[in-house]
């Protein structure tokens, strides 16, 4: 596969895997390599293979999280969480899985991996990591990174990230990714040795910097606009959802106050006593049911968050195109101006401003030899520039083609995943309504 960015060293990789919308679903999937951008959906689908990779099932899981203390770069004590990554290979025939690799990584290492992938695969919509700090919290959830619920949800998010990378037809074959899963010690050094930080275009980080691009691919402009809007709307949705959760929690919990007073009231009643006692009990059950309900909803919020962060990845690809197009246009402009200079020198007419021309005017004409030398230099530069422009053009077109292929793949994935998320959200609501209705019916029946 051609890539605009410099190729990393590639190694045969087993097992691209399917990332699953629901982390608790099965982890297995059939394996094979895919070319352009098509990706099979769902576990168990047969994969078309155009290459010679053998079909082998691999499972990746982030199975545990552990609190650790250590010393950081400044030799200060710090507490952090480490996550256990386990890789298993599954024999095709008997379904038994064998643990092939197991190592511990912390969040910062995942970040390092992702940053590396962003640099080396700028045309790919790179899967996002779960959030660094808890945002969109509602009052019950702790914003503390050490909070067990947060750690648990992060563990699931990190697993999801690895599964997404592993199931990406291009990313799964990356050596650094492979080493991330298999080489515990020295991995950081290996990544840094690739020198990817140097290759990174710092301009990509400057989100707000605008480049006046004359002829961008319209699709990318639309896509960038879409990704901005998507980010905005999902943020808004998550914020309001957190407030909704907060308020719903309040409603349920206040009902809990009924429990005690109904019980006290039942004590002074004769015939009504039993009914009231029962009613009080059901109120307590109702009030305590909210914790599970909202925990389930957090999972939905996490699914939305993933696509909130995906929007940023999408935007990054668009920005890369913009930058490439900008560089191309600048190069073309530069070439054009050099050509003009050359022409003017040759013909003697001065239409364009040049410093040499000014100084010549001020300090006297240059000699014919000097002028010849300059023309010669310019001609060389022009030749070089033409080649560069040609290759930049090629690179640009390659980038657009590959990026767009991955974007199409991403769009399908997004539509599928979000539909699944909405369905499971609806199912959640239905189950909650049914459960609560049953509770109220039981309360009513003991009156």
């Amino acid at each position: 596969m051609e890539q605009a960015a410099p190729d990393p060293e590639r190694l045969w990789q087993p097992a691209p895997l399917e990332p699953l919308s629901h982390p608790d679903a099965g982890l297995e999937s059939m394996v094979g390599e895919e070319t352009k951008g098509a990706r099979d959906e769902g576990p168990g689908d047969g994969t078309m293979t155009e290459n010679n990779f053998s079909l082998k099932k691999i499972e990746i899981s982030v199975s545990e999280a552990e609190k650790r203390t250590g010393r950081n770069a400044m030799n200060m004590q710090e507490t952090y969480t480490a996550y256990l990554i386990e890789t298993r290979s599954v024999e095709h025939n008997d379904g038994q899985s064998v643990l092939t690799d197991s190592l511990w990584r912390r969040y910062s290492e995942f970040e390092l991996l992702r940053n590396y992938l962003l640099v080396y695969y700028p045309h790919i919509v790179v899967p996002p990591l779960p959030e660094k700090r808890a945002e969109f919290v509602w009052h019950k959830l702790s914003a503390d990174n050490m909070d067990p619920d947060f750690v648990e949800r992060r563990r699931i998010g990190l697993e999801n990230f690895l599964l997404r990378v592993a199931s990406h037809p291009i990313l799964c074959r990356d050596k650094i990714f492979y080493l991330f899963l298999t080489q515990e010690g020295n991995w950081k050094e290996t990544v840094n040795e690739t020198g990817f930080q140097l290759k990174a275009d710092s301009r990509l980080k400057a989100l707000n910097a605008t480049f006046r691009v004359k002829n961008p691919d319209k699709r990318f402009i639309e896509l960038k606009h879409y990704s901005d809007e998507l980010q905005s709307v999902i943020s808004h949705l998550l914020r309001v959802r957190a407030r909704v959760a907060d308020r719903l929690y309040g409603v349920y919990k206040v009902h809990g106050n009924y429990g005690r007073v109904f019980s006290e009231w039942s004590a002074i009643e004769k015939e009504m006593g039993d009914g009231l006692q029962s009613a009080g009990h059901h109120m307590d059950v109702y009030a305590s049911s909210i914790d599970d309900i909202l925990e389930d909803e957090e999972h939905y919020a996490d699914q939305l968050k993933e696509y909130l962060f995906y929007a940023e990845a999408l935007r990054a690809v668009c920005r890369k195109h913009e930058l490439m197009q900008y560089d191309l246009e600048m190069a073309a402009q530069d070439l054009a101006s050099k050509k003009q200079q050359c022409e003017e020198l040759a013909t003697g007419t001065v239409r364009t401003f040049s410093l040499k021309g000014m100084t010549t005017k001020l300090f006297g004409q240059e000699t014919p030899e000097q002028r010849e030398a300059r023309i010669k230099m310019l001609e060389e530069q022009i030749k070089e520039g033409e080649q560069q422009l040609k290759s930049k053009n090629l690179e640009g077109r390659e980038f657009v083609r590959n990026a767009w292929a991955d974007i199409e793949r991403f769009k399908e994935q997004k539509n599928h995943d979000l539909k699944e998320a909405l369905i499971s959200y609806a199912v959640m609501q239905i189950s909650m309504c049914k459960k609560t209705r049953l509770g109220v019916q039981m309360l009513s029946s003991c009156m």
Partner: protein
Amino acid sequence: MGLSCAMLGECIDDQMTLPSSHSRSRKGDREVQDLILPNGGTPAGTASPASSSSLLNRLQLDDDMDGETRDLFVTVDDPKKHVCTMETYITYRITTKSTRVEFDLPEYSVRRRYQDFDWLRNKLEESQPTHLIPPLPEKFVVKGVVDRFSEEFVETRRKALDKFLKRITDHPVLSFNEHFNVFLTAKDLNAHKKQGMALLTRVGESVKHVAGGYKLRNRPLEFAAIGEYLDTFALKLGTIDRIAQRIIKEEIEYLVELREYGPVYSTWSALEGELAEPLEGVSACIGNCSTALEELTDDMTEDFLPVLREYILYSDSMKSVLKKRDQVQAEYETKLEAVALKKEERPKVPADVEKCQDRMECFNADLKADMERWQNNKRQDFRQLLMGMADKNIQYYEKCLMAWESIIPLLQEKQEAK
């Protein structure tokens, strides 16, 4: 039969306190005239008033609830706003259907306003001090923010007023009260009010008879128990009322957030292609749930809270009746003691002490009977109330269920391949 019992009870009281009652003015007040026996003495052949009144009272309790023997039906409906120069107020139509001889016509339809109900209640309290008079909805709106001409407020009040009259209708003694009859039938109540005032005050005074200053040593066990029960009952209801109000407040705040939440899905839908319909569906669904919640909150405010408040008011008025009873007993006991001390008196108990004793026993009997009736009604009312609220909640969950279930097929729909 009921009327004679009431007459009996009342006229005995009258005889005791105002021997010259027949000299009262009878202008236009035939009910008062009927009360007074021409010979000024006690009717022949009566047993002690306490037992006959309470006996009949108790008998009435049994066949009262039976629809077949019911001979009086009263309904409150059709609120109308009246705008006058001095004030604006609401009147309600009171429809009465009865086969009782006390009613000249089989059917009546009159219009009354709140202050008429207030007048009725005061009259009942005055004329039937030994009975528990049902409460009226609050006269003034506590919060002051509520619009007393809003549909919800008027409807809530109408229901409460209807309940008030129905409770009186169901009462074997109160339903025969002449003030009640006037209230239901008189074309011009104000005329009656003015006339009645002068007369009834004197009667009322004698009957009210709260001779202050008599201290009760011991409330009999059963009445002490009732008093304690009412104290705890009112306390618990007060707590429930506060919790209910808090729940409504929380639900309203939840509703506010829901109303913002749903539309965000619509905004998102506008950005998407394949996801547009599913997202729009979710938005509509949340909208439906919001509407259902609003209906539930309204129901709670209109149906649940008023009944709680009504029973708190009921408890309060019942406690004051208990206190009056205490007063009557205290007076009796004090007078009895005084007699016992005066050794020179005949050993026979003087007439006025006997009257006190009768009054006390009558009061006790009436109160006990009314307490039992009250307990029955209370059980029914609360059972209905709690089940009603449960029903409303079930309806709410069913509406939400329907909304979410209906979008599942929409979400699962496979789009045509591009």
